[in-house]
C-alpha cells in the first residue's frame, strides 16, 4: 500500500485514491480541427515511461480533488505531488 501526499490533505493511504492516468494531456481547444492521427495521439497514445511519470491522481475518499504527481515507476516512490494546473516540476529521475 502506497502512502500518497495529497496537496490539500497531506499523506493518506492509497485506498483513498484513484489513479487518473498520464498528466498534462490537454483536451484539444479546437476539436474540429484535429485529424485522425491527432485524435489517436490525444485519446490513446501514452508515454508509459520506465522512470519518472507525471500522472493524475484523485483523492476520491477525501477531498475528492484531482492533483498531479511525479512518481518513479521503477520503485513506485512519489518524488513530488502538485496541484492541477501547475507546470510539471523540472526534476531529473533515474530514467527521465
Amino acid at each position, binding site marked *: 500500500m502506497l502512502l500518497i501526499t495529497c496537496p490539500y490533505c497531506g499523506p493518506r493511504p492509497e485506498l483513498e485514491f484513484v489513479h487518473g492516468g498520464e498528466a498534462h494531456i490537454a483536451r484539444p481547444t479546437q476539436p474540429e480541427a484535429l485529424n485522425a492521427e491527432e485524435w489517436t495521439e490525444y485519446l490513446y497514445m501514452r508515454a508509459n515511461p*520506465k522512470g519518472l511519470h507525471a500522472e493524475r491522481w484523485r483523492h476520491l475518499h477525501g477531498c475528492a480533488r484531482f492533483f498531479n504527481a511525479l512518481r518513479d515507476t521503477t520503485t*513506485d516512490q512519489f518524488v513530488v505531488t502538485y496541484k492541477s494546473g501547475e507546470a510539471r516540476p523540472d526534476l531529473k529521475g533515474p530514467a527521465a
Partner: protein
Amino acid sequence: MQKFSAFELFKQGLNGQAGWKPQWRSPEPKAAYDAVIIGGGGHGLGAAYYLAKQHGMRNIAVLEKGWLGGGNTGRNTTIIRSNYLFDESAGLYDHSVKLWEGLSQELNYNVMFSQRGVMMLAHTVHDVQVFKRHVHANRANGVDNEWLSPEEAKAYCPPLNISDNMRYPVLGAALQRRGGTARHDAVAWGYARAADDLGVDIIENCEVTGIRRNAAGAVEAVETTKGLIRTPKIGVSAAGHTSVVLGMAGVRLPLESYPLQALVSEPIKPVFPCVVMSNTIHAYISQSDKGELVIGAGTDIYTSYTQRGGLHISQHTLEAICELFPAFRRMRMLRNWGGIVDVTPDRSPIVAKTPVPGLYVNCGWGTGGFKATPGAAHTLAWTIAKDEPHPINAPFTIERFRDGHLIDEAAAAAVAH
C-alpha cells in the same frame, strides 16, 4: 536433438541418467542475423521456432535480457481459454487453443496441456446476461462454451460454495471444456529446444539498449549489452516493456504497463478439478500438478514496472477465494509475485507491422497473454516472414485505434481488468 521418449528414458536409466545433454546451446551473438526477436518468453521463442520451422529462416536470434521464461511466461496463472466475445478474438484465441492441442507432440516436449475446463462464475443478473451472450457468440464462432446452473457448476467443481448466504451468490456459470492449463516453463523450454535444434541462436543476459535505423527509416541493427547486431527485421515480444523497446525506434503505442499479481498455496492432495474464474469478485484459481493452488489477483490501479504490486490487491482476491471455497480458509500461501502487463485501451492485443519498416510488434496482451502463446508466436512469425499479417492477426493492428476498428473486449467483460 536428443529425442525424448520412453525408450530414451529407459536407455539413459541403464547409464544412471548421466547421458542427457543441455537442451539448447548458449552461443555468443553473431555480427548479423536475418531477423532478431527481442524477448525470450514463450511468445518470442515460439515466434523464432515458427520462423525457422515454417518460413525457413534459420539465421535468426532471440535476445533475452534475463533468463528464458523469467518474465510473464513464468509469472502467470497458466489459464488457457478462447471464450472471447468478438469474431476477431475468437479467431485468434481459438487458433491458439488448436495449436495447444498438438503442441506437446509437435515440440516433442510435454507442455502438460490439460483441458480440464474453465468455468467462469456469474454473480449478478448482469453477469448472467453477459455470459449467456458469450455462450451464444462463441458457439456461433465454433468455440465451445455452455451455460451451467449453480448445481451443475458444483457438480463440475465440488469445492464450490453455491449457498445463497454469500455476498455475491453463484447464479450460474459458463464452462469452456476445451479450456484448461499448461506448464508455463515447459512452453518456453520446449520452444527454445525446438528452435535451437533448427539453428536459432538463443542469447540470454543480452539486453537491447537501442534500435538503429538507416537513412530510409528502416531498422538496420540493435544495440545490446553484448554489442551491435545487424539485422533487417526485428520482432518485439517484450510484454510490459514494449513501450520502452519501441520507444528506441521512435514508435509510440497505446499501452500502459501495470503490475498483476499471482500467488500459490502450500501443496495439497488433488482437490480442485478445473479452473474457476470469477471476474465480478476477482478470483482466479486452479490447482497445479504439484498440488499448489494457483491463484490470480487483479492489477494495481497505477502503472508501474516494479513486478510487485500492493498487498491489499492479493488480500482482496483471497477474501473472494475464501468465500467461494470455504474449505481453503485455513490454507497458507507460499509465494506471491507480480508481473508487468501491457494493457491496450480495448483490452485486445496488437500483433502487427509498425510504422517503421522491418519492425514488428506483438504486445498488448494485458492480463491474458499466456493462453495465446502459440497463436501469437505463429502469427508474429508469419507477419515477420511475409511482411504482411496472417488473416487471423490482420485486425490486431496499431492503426485500429486511428480507424475506430476497436476490438472492445474490455466493454464485453470477457475478463476483469
